[in-house]
């Protein structure tokens, strides 16, 4: 599309892709376990979350935690500790399952029975751009009414789908929507 930025940062602008900022904010709303997985407290909290019910175990297995039940039991009992590689897999599986579990409720809160949620779009940071190349990009807000595609892509961890879904939304900003492909922050409440 002609509005897409081809060489972002060529003149010193800083920012992240809009869909990354959206995913970051959705993650913030998801309230993951705060203690890192490398601490015993954080590890146990994640393992308990992933093994509480047979359904959770199945979801964890699907999310990549393909270890035997015996290993899981040993981890839970503290008899063995996961290898660093497995710690990463535990954390990834936890995030995936958690996102998947809360997606329904997050979606309902964001859609608000069709009223949607007001989204603040903070433009990219031009402090590193030489003044002749700086452009006036203002702070914009947008009411997003349908979050299904965004939340689904976020829960599935599909970056490309999230990018597409988010681009579909910011097109409503008007002809300058390309200026908001990269942002410093995207804020909304749920």
């Amino acid at each position, binding site marked *: 599309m002609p509005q897409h930025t081809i060489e972002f940062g060529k003149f010193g602008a800083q920012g992240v892709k809009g869909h990354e900022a959206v995913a970051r*904010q959705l993650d913030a709303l998801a309230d993951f376990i*705060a203690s890192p997985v490398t601490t015993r407290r954080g590890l146990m909290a994640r393992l308990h979350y992933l093994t509480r019910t047979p359904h959770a175990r199945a979801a964890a297995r699907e999310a990549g935690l393909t270890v035997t039940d015996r290993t899981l039991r040993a981890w839970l009992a503290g008899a063995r500790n996961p290898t660093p590689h497995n710690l990463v897999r535990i954390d990834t599986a936890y995030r995936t399952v958690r996102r998947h579990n809360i997606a329904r409720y997050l979606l309902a809160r964001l859609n608000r029975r069709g009223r949607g949620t007001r989204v*603040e779009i*903070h433009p990219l940071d031009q*402090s590193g751009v030489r003044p002749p190349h700086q452009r006036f990009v203002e702070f914009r807000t947008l009411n997003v009414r349908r979050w299904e595609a965004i939340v689904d892509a976020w829960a599935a961890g599909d970056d490309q789908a999230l990018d597409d879904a988010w681009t579909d939304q910011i097109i409503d900003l008007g002809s300058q929507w390309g200026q908001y492909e990269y942002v410093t*922050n*995207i*804020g909304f*409440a*749920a």
Partner: protein
Amino acid sequence: MSDFDAIDSLLASLTPQPALPEAEARRDLRERAGLSKAQVARTLGVSPSTVTGWETGRDPSGELRAKYAYLLDGLAARFASPTSPASPVSSAPLASPDSAAAGEAAAPGPAGAQSTTPQPTDPTPDSTPSPTLSPDSTPSPATGGDGDDVAALAVPEPCVLCGRPARHQVAGFPQHLDAAQCTAPNAPPAEPPVPTVPAELPSSRTTAPAHPAPGTRAAPPAQPAPGPQPAPGVQAGAGVRTGAGARRRRTVPVVEASPDPVAAAVAEALTRHEGDVEAATAALLKRAIPDAMALLDDCRKGGRYAVVAHPWIPDVLRKQSARGADQIWEARPKWTRPELPEGRHEVTALDINGAYLSALKTHLPLGQLEHTVGDVHDRRRAGVHLITPPEWEHGAYLPNPIGNRDEPGPLWVTEPTLRLLLRLSGPKYALCEPPEIHESFTSGATENLLEKFRVVLKDARDRALADGDEVTLEYVKAMYSKFVSTMGESNYNRELYRPDWMHLIRSQAFANLWVKALKAHDSGLAVVRVMGTDELHVVGDWRRVFPEGRGVAEVKVKDVYSVGAAPETPAAAGDADEN
């Protein structure tokens, strides 16, 4: 200046030509409005025969065309529908064909004079676009051309010397040329009323302001004539424009006309719980945060600034861990006087009412915080600053304005603390050296962002105090205190994510308390303790310094205790309060 006016008019003539209705329609419009050709001609500064030409097929050009199109637009807006009343003209005598003829007979003088001069370029930018001179008031160039920079005014303006409407200006200042007119406050205005002002013209200017006629820009609001009995002519001249101002004023209460949301919520809760005060209070406390956010939204309607709720937050404002704190030092005071003079002292513990409510008035950054480096402070911005605080040498009788900081070295403080330090280092107080600013995260700021919100809550609080309404009092208190405590990274209020505001408001409360301590000290009271947000312990007759009561500008007595009778008073002071 006249050169530039000429250029302006030249440029104006280059603008696209506004469309005019058909020739018959022009005449029709004018006649339906009851205007004579002479009136129109005088208003536009042309001769009546020119108007006749325009109404029989010729077309004006340039600025005249813009003015004529503007007039016809206004007439069409008023008289396009045949059912509308024929004439809303207030005081202008309607022109019958006879008077039109009379006007035509009277007109040639000014019309001829104006057609020779480039009059439509309108040398005074603040005069109205239509030269509404009546024939007898038209000054001949000879009267003004006596060497001084005297010019005639199309519309009377208040004399700079006496305030009465004056017809002339000298070097740009409207004033009377005759001293007798100027000194007599009740003298009739110099000129008879202007009878031929078509009242539609200025009022239609207010109804259709989109027309960019070059002369219509920047007509400043006229001050009403300060004389006790303005002559009718003055009222006709100024009344049109003050009418526009009155219309502007009238729109304000429409915005504010919503009923008091606090009282409505309290009444609704009481009805739902059938008058059970405790249950109603509990229910209200539960909904205090969403209600405060709704009130905030309501208070920002029509405001100049939007509340930016989710800006990017610098790392210094982020919590280090889930339960940790960020790096901002709020300068919370916690100070006990090291020693009192010998003897027994009666200490009064004063409580500042609604400290956080008052602290909502502070310089709040509006948008995203931007980073700057260097020892500069911009008064129009607010945020957080990394400073090296100055030495404080008055700890024996006044607390340090940055609180009791144990660690040396630079620290991140907020705008209210920095402003307090800058004030105290200024020539008026000269209590310390100025702080050294190393870096800042600031944004353009305003003190009025939460002002309406604060006033609504303060009014509700005052009413509740007057009525002894404990439910409303508790509700209002929960609203503002929870609003402040959850506006940062709280999960109880996700609508607003401004940890910077939270720190600034708290610091403002502490700074306010510090200033009260200074006031007590300056008034001869001995400050014994300054604690937390709202606690001030003093020795002496504090009632002559602080009014007592429960309003936000008053203080409340929390406790009275005695210290002393022994040299080790500070320990006693500390123990007596630590109950």
